[in-house]
């Protein structure tokens, strides 16, 4: 993957002008934001769209018969269309809007886990999951007895496909819930192969696409999966909005998640009936402004195009692996064949928090800690790492500055 000459498909200097925050200084130095995997910065179009809605066109949706409500409903529902197009979902009604991907995963554990899975069916996850794809299944297991299986990963940080198939082979797994791209290792999982195997053994597949949707075009029909979840704020959109896509017949078979307004068809004290999907899963006033912001973010990303985004990410990742890999005393976690712009590393004799504090003094923002993936840290014999993650607006110069600064960190703690 060490291709050094790739077509410069992305005009990063121009893209950086779209992100007002990148003009900010940190401790008197230019902001070098390498923590986009935690949450990405927002382009002007997202900020403007949310502001315009609040200033000119805002009311609650789906219920008012007045002009403002109807216009706001149109603007909010346009987000559902944009999301459906982003994922190439067959139907817009298969897009469930949540508050974040953690809520999407909990919706699945509640409505699919408790409503569709039988207690003797298992859930299969991998050894590189975010806590949000571990804890909901632990809660399900502890309440209903559904076994939780964990497919191990290799030293390279890839899914162990032999073990994965072995864990499916008794046919007891009802759902494979697995990351599409690790938030720690940057590894892309072999999604098509995972779906083929899972379906061959009778299991449905849910992908955690929190990281993958940022860097690669996701086509749920091409993947063949049954559910796909992601979150808005990592995709240059606002916080407070997440997504769950599911096949219509599966969503229809699932009981509601939360109860309240919006999700009902009729209500009496004796019995209530539920709205059609997706509204059955969307109790309460939805994230209206966040939907409008996410649509602007998706439009922005689509206009740039995933081909250019993926090429940019690959070029940055190759460069970073080469630069950081050449530093003595710096250990990069994992070496997957198919990996993207998320790189976790440890430095000899320097704790991750000390690394982060030192880098911060140069204006460089990295994440330090267990990245909400404690079992994965333990798998590599570590408690915490520092993590640099890349976005549309990341430059090669920023990565060079990170590498130069890391060399100084190592000297500092030598």
């Amino acid at each position: 993957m060490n291709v050094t000459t790739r077509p410069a498909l992305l005009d990063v200097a121009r893209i950086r002008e779209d992100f007002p925050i990148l003009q900010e200084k940190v401790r008197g130095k230019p902001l070098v934001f390498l923590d986009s995997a935690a949450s990405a910065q927002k382009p002007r179009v997202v900020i403007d769209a949310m502001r315009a809605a609040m200033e000119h066109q805002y009311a609650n949706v789906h219920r008012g018969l007045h002009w403002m409500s109807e216009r706001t409903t149109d603007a909010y529902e346009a987000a559902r269309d944009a999301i459906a197009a982003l994922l190439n979902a067959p139907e817009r009604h298969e897009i469930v809007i949540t508050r974040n991907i953690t809520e999407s995963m909990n919706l699945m554990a509640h409505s699919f886990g408790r409503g569709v899975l039988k207690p003797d069916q298992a859930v299969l996850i991998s050894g590189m999951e975010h806590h949000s794809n571990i804890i909901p299944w632990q809660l399900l297991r502890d309440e209903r007895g559904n076994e939780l299986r964990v497919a191990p990963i290799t030293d390279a940080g890839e899914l162990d496909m032999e073990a994965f198939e072995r864990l499916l082979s008794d046919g007891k797994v009802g759902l494979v819930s697995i990351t599409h791209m690790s938030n720690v290792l940057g590894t892309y999982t072999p999604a098509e192969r995972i779906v083929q195997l899972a379906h061959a053994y009778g299991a449905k597949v849910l992908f955690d696409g929190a990281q993958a949707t940022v860097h690669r075009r996701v086509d749920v029909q091409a993947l063949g999966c049954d559910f796909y979840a992601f979150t808005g704020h990592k995709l240059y959109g606002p916080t407070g909005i997440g997504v769950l896509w599911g096949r219509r017949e599966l969503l229809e078979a699932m009981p509601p998640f939360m109860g309240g307004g919006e999700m009902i068809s009729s209500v009496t004290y004796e019995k209530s009936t539920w709205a059609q999907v997706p509204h059955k899963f969307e109790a309460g006033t939805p994230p209206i402004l966040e939907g409008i912001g996410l649509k602007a973010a998706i439009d922005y990303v689509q206009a740039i195009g995933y081909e250019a985004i993926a090429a940019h990410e690959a070029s940055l990742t190759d460069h970073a692996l080469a630069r950081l890999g050449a530093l003595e005393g710096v250990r990069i976690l994992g070496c997957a064949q198919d990996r993207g712009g998320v790189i976790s590393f440890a430095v000899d004799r320097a704790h991750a928090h000390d690394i982060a504090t030192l880098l911060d003094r140069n204006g460089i923002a990295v994440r330090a800690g267990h990245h909400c993936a404690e079992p994965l840290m333990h798998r590599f014999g570590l408690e915490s790492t520092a993590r640099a993650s890349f976005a549309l607006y990341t430059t090669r110069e920023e990565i060079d500055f990170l590498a130069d600064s890391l060399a100084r960190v190592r000297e500092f703690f030598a």
Partner: protein
Amino acid sequence: MSGTFDDLRDLYQEVILDHGRRPRHSGRLERFDATAKGDNPLCGDRIQVWVKYAPDGTIADTKFEARGCAISVASADLMAEVVAGRNKADTAALFDAFRELARTGACPHCEAAQQEALDRLAPLAGVHEYPSRVKCATLPWHALSAALQGRGEASSEGGAP
């Protein structure tokens, strides 16, 4: 862009780097009177302290095992040094003073009897500029407090840093 960290010497003074790298009080006490663990669930740092009392009830010896950053290890090591010879009430008062030092960078109301110890702890005062790192410095003290009070565990998330 310059790659210098010279201005970080206010946070990572030589004494912190030195005690962080080569703590003098690291290890377990084979015979001890009190012990407790401290845990910062936000960052995964953990510490366990062991305390041995003298016949008069003052602290005779403190040792610790820590998994954490340079600041937390240095803080634990300096703590073990300055609490030697103090009784429980003295140690609690010193923790209060140190907490103020770590949070604000100074302790104007601290007692004269604590001054020597606070001078020794002063290199850690730089954490006050880094709110997320204050807990690194205070976690060992939370663990020590728990041990002295007969509680087995302390968490950095239990209340005030």
